[in-house]
């Protein structure tokens, strides 16, 4: 097998699996900043117990995130040595900055937060979860800087066969950094809201009187609505506009625009046929894509036909993952709006059907994040650094096929095992301290 394909598979498995966990920890950390703040200021025991439960779940998830993140710090060197040599003058700096500004902060204060309850004064304890939350956002910022530079490189010059830094700030704030950062961070907040809401629903389905469940649900559902709206508008919209501007091939692929045209339609649904590229059974709104991308319903947009065949990303996977992400994004708005209406009518906690829906929706925002990530990274292909270095020219020449196959199998099995255990234990821990419902006791 081709060592490039193998290294790509390994990167996709390991980065994709890791990317399940940070959104959950970032999202939960910020919710905990609020919960622990209320627990400290109002001395309300319900908030305190809610903080304790979700704090433990945060700690557990964080540990799996850290464990699966170790490989990522080294994998650029092990599997992508030619890439590392080419971008090392630029790409290493954000990784190091992430360590110095974020990893230390998160890890050190998470230890203080988890083990310091009752040991340090309350304000210090609250400050520790705040620092975990701040650290996790700084971490996301720097890793997204690195990723954005691959997508829209800036602030460099090609010298000595590599990209050399010309302007630090131009590289950090390259054209896609800020749109990607805001879109992604709000997505993580949404993930946190759904995880908290789902766990609250799980507890309330077992015991409708559970105070932790009530407290968490009433916080997570409105927060879910706010973040579900923001992730689509303005941030998702802004990010898509930037892609239209800076990576037209990717934009054409994710939107399913295969021929250049004025007044391009927005495709709501379609079946991708790759050779020749066409959309079948499509449902589209004329002119809307042009309007959304460039603010003019007649604006010309370049389609796939305008680019050389060897510079076009895979069409099927980019279109499908992007559209599934958007559909899920709209679903989140609908689902949380419905919940907020129920909350307003004071029927949220009692609606078992809605609680069941929330419970089963927990994985959906995580899946939406994965779709978004796939659309972004596959949409960048065939480039590992957009228009500068091809993915096929970037892997380590000294690493053999057998070695990569071996590491894929090793990490694949380990991650499968860890993932299954994590899900099982999260469900188990989510019910921690639940008292049996009165009605259920009678039935037993």
């Amino acid at each position, binding site marked *: 097998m081709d060592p490039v394909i193998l290294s790509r598979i390994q990167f996709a498995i390991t980065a994709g699996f890791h990317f399940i966990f940070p959104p959950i920890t970032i999202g939960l950390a910020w919710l905990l900043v609020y919960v622990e703040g209320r627990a400290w200021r109002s001395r309300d025991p319900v908030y305190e117990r809610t903080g304790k439960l979700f704090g433990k779940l945060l*700690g*557990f998830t964080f*540990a*799996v995130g*850290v*464990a699966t993140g*170790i490989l990522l*710090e*080294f994998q650029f*060197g*092990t*599997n992508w*040595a030619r890439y*590392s*040599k080419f*971008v*090392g*003058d*630029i*790409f*290493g*700096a954000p*990784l*190091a*900055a*992430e*360590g*110095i*500004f974020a*990893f*230390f*902060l998160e*890890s*050190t*204060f998470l*230890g*203080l937060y*988890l*083990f*310091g309850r*009752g*040991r*340090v004064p309350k304000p210090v304890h609250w400050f520790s979860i705040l620092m975990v939350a701040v650290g996790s956002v700084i971490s996301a910022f720097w890793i997204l800087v690195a990723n954005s530079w691959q997508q829209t490189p800036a602030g460099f010059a090609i010298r000595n066969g590599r990209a*050399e*830094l*010309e302007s*630090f700030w131009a590289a950090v704030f390259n054209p896609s950094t800020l749109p990607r950062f805001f879109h992604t961070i709000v997505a993580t907040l949404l993930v946190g809201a759904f995880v908290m809401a789902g766990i609250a629903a799980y507890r309330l389905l077992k015991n409708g009187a559970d105070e932790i469940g009530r407290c968490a649900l009433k916080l997570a559902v409105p927060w879910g609505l706010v973040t579900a709206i923001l992730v689509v508008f303005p941030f998702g919209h802004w990010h898509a506009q930037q892609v239209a501007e800076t990576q037209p091939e990717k934009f054409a692929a994710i939107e399913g625009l295969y021929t250049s045209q004025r007044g391009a339609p927005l495709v709501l649904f379609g079946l991708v046929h790759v050779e020749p590229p066409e959309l079948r059974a499509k449902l589209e709104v004329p002119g809307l894509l042009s309007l959304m991308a460039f603010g003019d319903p007649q604006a010309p947009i370049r389609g796939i036909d305008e680019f050389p065949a060897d510079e076009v990303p895979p069409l099927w996977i980019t279109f499908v993952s992007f559209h599934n992400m958007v559909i899920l994004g709209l679903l989140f708005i609908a689902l949380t709006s419905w919940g907020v209406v129920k909350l307003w009518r004071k029927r949220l906690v009692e609606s078992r059907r809605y609680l069941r829906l929330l419970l089963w929706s927990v994985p959906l925002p995580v899946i939406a994040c994965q779709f978004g990530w796939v659309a972004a990274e596959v949409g960048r292909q065939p480039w590992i650094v957009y228009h500068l270095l091809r993915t096929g020219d970037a892997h*380590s*020449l*000294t*690493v053999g096929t057998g*070695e990569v196959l*071996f590491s894929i199998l*090793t*990490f694949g099995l*380990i991650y499968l095992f*860890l993932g299954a*255990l994590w899900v099982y*234990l999260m469900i*188990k821990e989510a019910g921690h301290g639940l008292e049996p419902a009165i009605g259920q006791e009678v039935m037993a």
Partner: protein
Amino acid sequence: MDLNTIWFLLVGVLITGYAVLDGFDLGVGVLYLFARSEEERRIYLNAIGPVWDGNEVWLLTGGGALFAAFPIVYATVFSAFYLAMMLVVVALIARAVSFEFRGKLQGPGWKRLWNGCFGLGSLVAALLYGVAVANLVRGIPLDEVGTFSGSFIGLLNPFALLCGITGLAMFTMQGAAYMALKTEGELQGRMQAWTVRGWTAFVTLYAVVTLATVFAAPHVFAGIAAKPLFWILLLAFAAAAVIVPIGSRAARYGRAFLASSLSIVSLVGLVAVGMFPRLVASSVDLAFSLTIYNSASTPRTQTAMLVIALIGMPLVLAYSAYVYMVFKGKVVFDDASY
């Protein structure tokens, strides 16, 4: 002092910080294999529970800093050590998750699984760091453009294995010295014995390694006697080596731990002095070695990174010190414990 030298020092500081701090975590993990009861195991885990994660960040940041400052070394060494790197990562993952997974379910099989993961993960990592350093010092097959042509088996040469075992002894000493601070009574007595045992093995192996280096990597000693830093570090190492067993036997555990840490600092320092300005020796021809000059990023990047390090690292040291203050003293169980 030029930027390249400054970054040589800074990467060295990160590696030293990792070796001292996660060094005791790894040592605790190795000693954990010899724990006698469930309660003892919990003492081990909670002794490092609040701090191990932060300690491991020194490694991740070291990796990032190496990438930023000396990208050619990052790319060449990590791809050359492919299988060894994967093994280290598997060991670190096994260790990291066992803290959390272990206590979540009951049952002897479950506990045994994670006990094994934690202990063996620590052991494998503690062993492989020495192997890796030995190969960088002794030299790996790099041609004139820095392409590696060796194999995984080639990395497991006798000299490297000897250094691996030396590192294991060093981390065990460090772990035991730390545990003596966190325990009381009979367990503390055993930790004291392990400190001295680890120290004896470490100092003996250190002498053997030094002798072996004369043959395996003579370039390390070329002109070293003229460097004042070499003599200072050697003296520091000798002083630390004397204080560890004396302090430990006299129940001055804080002093023994600091001396043990100092011995690690000075050992890393001595290796660095011997290597400077090389980062990776080439066994084909010493002239093909990767140095702080031929594998560096540009001065602009190194300057930007220096600013980041100067802003960030004092903060890191300050809040890390605070957290160590909060959790100092003997292990006590509460409902946050593992």
